[in-house]
């Protein structure tokens, strides 16, 4: 009998797992990686990188001093321009970009900001974005063009961008904090660095996609290389580059708000953080809404750049601006005194309070059930999670035996029916559930991941996985990494199932997509930070809230990609299936689902990356593991810990990314796409 790669990999994992379980009582080092085998990586990094960064410190401080000018300038201008003019300017810009719709969006969006009472803070945030985005766009453009022009760099640039995408947001901040010192400039630079990769990626993609004939037409017209690039290729790639501008703007906004945790700048992110810490949920909700409104206005307006645009008369734009200027003379109300929505905040506060008071028991039981029967066993295993307090009885070692025996029987049944892989997977799941992810023996994780890597991408991927996981082991961050793995794994699992089902639903029902689509759009526009507010309101600080926040954020790609994959099956395939007599469900199962597999896998991949990104933010409301370490390191300005924990997090994300990509690639090849 020949085994498929996947089956062999699963078999290896099972064998190693069983060996670990059996031998663990005799060799303690099989369970936990001994502390004696780790290196003081944190200290090395602290002193090593610290020394290097020290060299750059003068330059950095100089830069910081320089950047303070445009930032203070923008901040002063925005802060001192009368609000009618700012609103009118936004509406006028909206008009130019997308006609009445965008003008109204700008008008209502900023009016909401005004009456929320957070005008001044919002303008400070906006000032940061205004200064950081041009920097990011320039860097991104330069990197993208360079990578395109010098093919030798392309691989390296792409790899760097990949890594930058997986490095958690907070991890950027610690070294920057060290270099630039406390203050808003750190947020500025962090957001410029964070926002540059999407731009670079889209520039490169856009340039690569310029049609061959267009490129050659420019050459044959006798343009020099520079003329070709500036006059033809970059403009021809314009739409894709504008997609980059849009993504870059959103990334910058998100990072500016996250950077508020450093403090020192009274912007809207800081306001959210402050009110959240004080548990003033009404105000936090209001400030969070301001951020969301900002995000929507910026996103929708800049998205029009990437579409085929009509021309909207500049005159009307000037008229709108003039009206704003006149209003500025007539209406002289200090925005700080406008806090029309404080009442709303109070209402939110009291109603949330009333709701939690009235449904406290129900909410608690949701939370406790999820914790006791889902998260906790996954984390520490049935053997420790089943207690009289949680499940009503105490887990005995003999239960483990029965549990395993049942799993083996089930697996044997599957194997006998020729479903070897399913059987082995059942065994693996049973083992993980009994032991708990946080308590998994390291040889099992190492070998298991490598085996999956082998099934997904062959030996090169095995090598990558082994080296990267080895690094985590040696750095002594292994246990924290497992904790992070557990929480993100649980969230990804939940997202995959719920998101997959929702995506499926959206694929078969138009109404469903009409409902889900705006929700997905909204969830994808909201900066990471804001997700924490609603979960905190109802479930307080804790792992379950973190889990929910991660799920809320990470579920979107799963829905989108599943639907996309299922709805884009070529018509001729579906017609061929129909004419063979397949009914709707058979078509779905036999044709659409296999065809959608690569797309769904890509969705899963995105969901994983999103989950890791949110995991770090969720450290703010109580998670353990790497996210917490990164957050702590930021607070203590501990570069060593910040870097190593950030790197470990990036490693986990990178490995997950490569594994899933490998499978998606294989599926694509199998389908001949």
């Amino acid at each position, binding site marked *: 009998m020949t085994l498929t790669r996947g089956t062999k990999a699963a078999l290896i994992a099972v064998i190693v797992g069983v060996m670990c379980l059996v031998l663990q009582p005799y060799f303690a080092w099989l369970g936990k990686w001994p502390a004696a085998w780790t290196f003081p990586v944190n200290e090395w990094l602290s002193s090593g990188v610290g020394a290097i960064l020290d060299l750059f410190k003068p330059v950095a401080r100089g830069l910081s001093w320089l950047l303070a000018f445009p930032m203070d300038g923008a901040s002063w201008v925005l802060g001192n321009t009368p609000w009618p003019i700012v609103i009118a300017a936004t509406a006028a810009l909206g008009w130019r970009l997308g006609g009445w719709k965008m003008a109204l969006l700008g008008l209502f969006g900023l009016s909401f900001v005004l009456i929320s009472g957070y005008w001044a803070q919002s303008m400070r945030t906006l000032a940061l974005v205004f200064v950081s985005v041009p920097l990011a766009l320039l860097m991104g453009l330069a990197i993208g063009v360079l990578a395109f022009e010098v093919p030798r760099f392309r691989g390296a640039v792409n790899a760097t961008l990949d890594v930058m995408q997986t490095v958690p947001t907070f991890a950027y901040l610690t070294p920057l904090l060290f270099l630039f010192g406390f203050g808003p400039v750190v947020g500025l630079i962090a957001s410029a660095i964070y926002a540059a990769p999407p731009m670079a990626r889209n520039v490169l993609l856009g340039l690569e996609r310029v049609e061959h004939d*267009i490129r050659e037409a420019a050459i*044959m017209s006798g343009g020099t290389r520079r003329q070709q690039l500036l006059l033809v290729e970059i403009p021809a790639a314009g739409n894709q580059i504008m997609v980059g501008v849009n993504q870059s703007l959103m990334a910058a906004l998100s990072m500016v708000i996250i950077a508020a945790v450093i403090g020192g700048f009274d912007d809207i992110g800081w306001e959210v953080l402050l009110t959240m810490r004080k548990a003033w949920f009404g105000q936090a909700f209001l400030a969070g809404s301001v951020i969301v409104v900002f995000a929507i206005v910026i996103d929708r307006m800049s998205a029009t750049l990437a579409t085929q645009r009509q021309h909207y008369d500049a005159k009307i734009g000037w008229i709108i601006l003039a009206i704003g200027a006149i209003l500025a003379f007539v209406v002289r109300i200090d925005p700080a005194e406008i806090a029309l929505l404080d009442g709303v905040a109070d209402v939110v506060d009291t109603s949330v309070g009333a709701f939690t008071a009235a449904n406290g028991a129900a909410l608690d039981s949701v939370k406790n059930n999820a914790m006791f029967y889902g998260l906790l066993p996954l984390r520490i295993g049935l053997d420790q999670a089943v207690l009289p307090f949680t499940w009503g009885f105490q887990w005995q070692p003999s239960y483990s035996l029965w549990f395993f025996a049942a799993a083996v029987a089930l697996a044997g049944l599957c194997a006998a029916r020729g479903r070897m892989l399913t059987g082995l997977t059942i065994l693996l799941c049973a083992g993980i559930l009994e032991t708990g992810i946080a308590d998994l023996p390291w040889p099992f994780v190492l070998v298991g991941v490598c085996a999956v890597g082998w099934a997904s991408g062959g030996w090169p991927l095995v090598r990558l996985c082994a080296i990267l996981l080895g690094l985590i082991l040696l750095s002594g961050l292994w246990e924290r990494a497992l904790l992070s793995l557990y929480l993100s794994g649980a969230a990804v699992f939940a997202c995959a199932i719920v998101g997959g089902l929702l995506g499926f639903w959206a694929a078969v029902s138009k109404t469903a997509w009409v409902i889900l689509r705006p929700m997905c759009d909204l969830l994808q526009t909201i900066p990471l930070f804001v997700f924490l507010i609603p979960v905190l309101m109802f479930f307080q600080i804790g792992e379950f809230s973190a889990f929910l926040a991660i799920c809320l954020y990470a579920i979107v790609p799963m829905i989108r990609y599943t639907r996309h994959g299922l709805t884009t099956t070529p018509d001729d395939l579906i017609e061929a299936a129909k004419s063979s007599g397949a009914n709707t469900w058979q078509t779905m199962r036999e044709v659409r689902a296999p065809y959608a597999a690569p797309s769904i896998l890509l969705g899963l991949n995105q969901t994983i990356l999103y989950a890791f990104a949110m995991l770090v933010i969720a450290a703010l409301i109580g998670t353990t593991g790497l996210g917490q370490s990164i957050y702590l390191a930021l607070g203590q300005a501990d570069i060593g810990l910040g870097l190593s924990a950030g790197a470990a997090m990036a490693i986990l994300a990178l490995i997950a990314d490569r594994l899933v990509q490998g499978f998606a690639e294989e599926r694509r090849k199998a389908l001949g796409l």
Partner: protein
Amino acid sequence: MTDKNSAAPAIAVEGLWQVFGEGARNSLQKIGTQDTRDTAAKLQDQGLIPAVRDANFEVQSGELFVIMGLSGSGKSTLIRCISRLVEPTAGAVRIDGEDILQASDKRLIDLRRNKLGMVFQHFGLFPHMSVADNVAFPLKMQGAGRSERRARALEVIKLVGLEGREDAYPRELSGGQRQRVGIARSLAVNPDIWFLDEPFSALDPLIRRQLQDEFLNIQATLKKSIVFITHDIAEALKLADRIAIMRDGEVVQIGTPTQIVLNPIDDYVREFARDVPKGRHMTIGEVMEPVGDGPLAGEWPELRTGMSLEDALTQCAATFEAVPVKDGDGKVVGMVRPDTFVKALGAEAT
């Protein structure tokens, strides 16, 4: 053109090879090019792609030279070698006697700005520029001033029949109109040598015929040296002064349309010529016999050696009497004239 070069052919291609893949040049040098087939086989064994194999031909000034071949036979690659859009692996290309493969980058830009024009299969229009800006782009590269550019652009736009659309954008045009823009752009600097890579393939048959006719009109007045690629034998026969047939990167036959149709060198070429209505491309001179002692006196239709077989047949048929047509029972139900016959079969009377 200087006098010195006026005798040289517009384009001369000698022993041209284009091999794609890592280290192609070294491999080709090592293997040598004595036997084309053998060399190509060895290159392929190494995983290289010999897209053009030992091409040799000349295009005379004012000649319309058509390159024909199946998809993937290396036509585009050959034309890209001549215009040096790709760097040939071996061989020589001379344009008006000048070895273009030795030309510096600066010289190359100069040549492209002034002497070469190219039309692309998928038009290659700049999406962010209006029709006029597209057409004026080569002039802009030449450094012409704005008003001068606009004037010249309008002139060529008129030549290709797109007057009034000069401020439209490519996305607002139909396929045929887009290719007119492509043609106008390539003519803007009034090049001496004109490359067209399957310019009409992406268009539907009616538009294609129309553009072919207009193309012939333009060529009749401009008299450029042209390399025209197509995979459509009818198009080749209609346009060409001479045709080169390519297969698997090799030029297998070069000749006038008649030579290609009447004396195909091998089955591959014959296969191309198979569907060609011979009556339209063979002349009566090619089938006539020497004058013996046949009945040559009397009233005969006017036949000339240059006449196509179809025309001659129509003329001959006109001299016959009408023939009766009977139904199944042998009753006469009508009559038919032989020349109606011939016309009905597709030959047109002249």
